[in-house]
């Protein structure tokens, strides 16, 4: 394999791994905001316990997701130095705004939220979670703005052999950015909904004594999925006319690029249908008493994750051979490094990421199995030992 092929494979693998963490982070924070708001207003202990239980899972996932994010960020400079050299002035702006406004602040707010539990005024503590959620969404906003530029470059001028930033607002009104951002956001909320449903269903299968706790969680998960999926599909289909206008050859980029698109749509439709069928079954907890839907809910947990990866495959592979559509070819952006060096990092990172995904799974599964706390316990995963 050539340096370009290896670098592309590495990018595909690291981005996919990273995005799995991102989806769950964004999905869970949205639901945590609802849970903690209800607790802060009503003071009911069940809402506090829900915030703690789901919050701990969120924190585990966030802390491990950061690691994949760091590798992602370094990768631009390590393997794709041609991108920064040529377009760093324009593409780098949303990227730097993401690290500064979003990530830098987000992790700091989150740290204060974790360690401020029970020590801060509860309204201040709630405000910190809102700020964490807001900056998490800002993160998605800037990353999609940067990606939108790669799909359909706008707001630049060519000066010598580099791009310069000409009109920053054009980057934010880019048609390949807006609908894709909504699509990603609703995909994350769907992941959150499906995750809540599946984990709660698991506890009912195990005959949990925490009936009220998981009944509420399951209902919240199903309703969230039912509300998010129609908008998710809407924002998805809204992109077809945009693709037709700006990337007419997208579906023919490679012979098989239509396949992941098809699978994604299939999963999206299935989740919509199933969640709406489940809604009336929530009455008098029919869905829990029937029992067999609970197994489907557990099996369903990976589905929205898979759909999201398929969606990205279509978006990114369909752009080839361009890195920046119409301006910079992928093969021209790769760093001048030996293929062996990229191969080495590919092997190292892939094996470590597999390890990381397993650690994430093991820690989350452990937190899930333990169930909600009976006595108050710290939220930080770091205080939890195996």
């Amino acid at each position, binding site marked *: 394999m050539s340096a370009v092929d290896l670098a592309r494979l590495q990018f595909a693998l690291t981005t996919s791994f990273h995005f799995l963490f991102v989806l769950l982070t964004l999905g869970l924070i949205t639901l945590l905001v609802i849970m903690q708001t209800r607790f802060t207003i009503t003071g009911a202990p069940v809402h506090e316990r829900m915030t703690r239980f789901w919050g701990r899972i969120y924190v585990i996932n966030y802390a491990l997701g*950061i690691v994949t994010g760091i590798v992602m960020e370094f990768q631009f400079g390590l393997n794709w130095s041609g991108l920064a050299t040529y377009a760093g002035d324009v593409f780098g702006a949303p990227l730097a705004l993401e690290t500064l406004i979003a990530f*830098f602040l987000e992790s700091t707010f989150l740290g204060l939220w974790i360690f401020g539990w029970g020590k801060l005024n509860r309204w201040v503590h709630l405000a910190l979670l809102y700020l964490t959620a807001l900056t998490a969404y800002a993160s998605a906003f800037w990353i999609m703005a940067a990606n939108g530029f790669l799909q359909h470059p706008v707001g630049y001028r060519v000066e010598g052999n580099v791009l310069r930033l000409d009109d920053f607002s054009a980057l934010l009104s880019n048609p390949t950015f807006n609908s894709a951002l909504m699509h990603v956001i609703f995909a994350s909320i769907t992941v959150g909904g499906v995750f809540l449903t599946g984990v709660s269903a698991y506890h009912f299968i195990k005959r949990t004594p925490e009936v009220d706790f998981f009944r509420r969680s399951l209902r919240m998960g199903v309703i969230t999925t039912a509300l998010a999926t129609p908008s998710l599909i809407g924002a998805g289909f809204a992109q077809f006319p945009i693709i037709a206008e700006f990337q007419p050859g997208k579906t023919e980029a490679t012979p098989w690029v239509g396949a992941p698109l098809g699978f994604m749509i299939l999963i999206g439709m299935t989740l919509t249908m199933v969640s709406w069928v489940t809604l009336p079954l929530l009455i008098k907890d029919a869905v829990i008493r029937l029992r067999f839907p609970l197994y489907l809910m557990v099996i369903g947990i990976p589905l929205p994750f898979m759909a999201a990866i398929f969606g990205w495959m279509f978006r990114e592979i369909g752009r080839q051979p361009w890195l920046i559509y119409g301006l910079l070819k992928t093969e021209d952006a790769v760093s001048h490094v030996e293929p062996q060096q990229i191969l080495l990092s590919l092997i190292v990172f892939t094996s470590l990421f597999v390890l990381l995904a397993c*650690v994430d799974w093991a820690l989350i599964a452990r937190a899930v199995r333990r169930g909600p706390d009976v006595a108050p316990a710290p939220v930080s995963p770091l205080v939890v030992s195996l």
Partner: protein
Amino acid sequence: METLWLVVLGTLTVGYFALAGFDYGTGLLLPFRRREEALQRMTPFFLGNEVWLVAAIGVLFAAFPRLEGELLSGAHSTFTLVLAGLVLFMAAVQLRLWWWLVFTGALMVSVGWGLFLAHLMEAPWPLALVMPVLFALHGWVFQTRNWKLFPVTALLCALPIPLAFSSIDTTGLMAHVDTLGLLAWVAIPIIPLVVLLQWSTVAISSR
């Protein structure tokens, strides 16, 4: 404007290295200290420094686009070592299964940074071992709460950075002043805000 961005990048990088001794230093000292207690003390600081690293690389990309690629791809295998160490370290700290994984991760990161700095200064590679020693020293000062020595070791950990980077001439490598101006509005208020919030986190968790 160019000077401002050199200062921003410098602050973020120095911030990362000055904080890095807390967790990597603690990791390096694990064979010699009571492990549970040492890790417990590090907890509020964990991930606190990686945040600075991410911000520094983001700024490097946007404000110094023609330096970033050369700097990183020029030391490809060294960064593979640093990043592999980071992944291992962060996963191992949270998993808490085998303490020697935490130690190995910390060692890989600190030797990696040492190698990178030696590469920048065109110094012989054994100089790389200075970084783990400095981090361990800083970690020891932090773990023993020797607050008088604390600024000294923090400075020592951060000192190699300006030394190594002073050899780089940034003319022509920076972004256009339009990009720099836009980002300045964001970077200037955010850095002090993060310092304040991180300090509050530490203050709260030690209460």
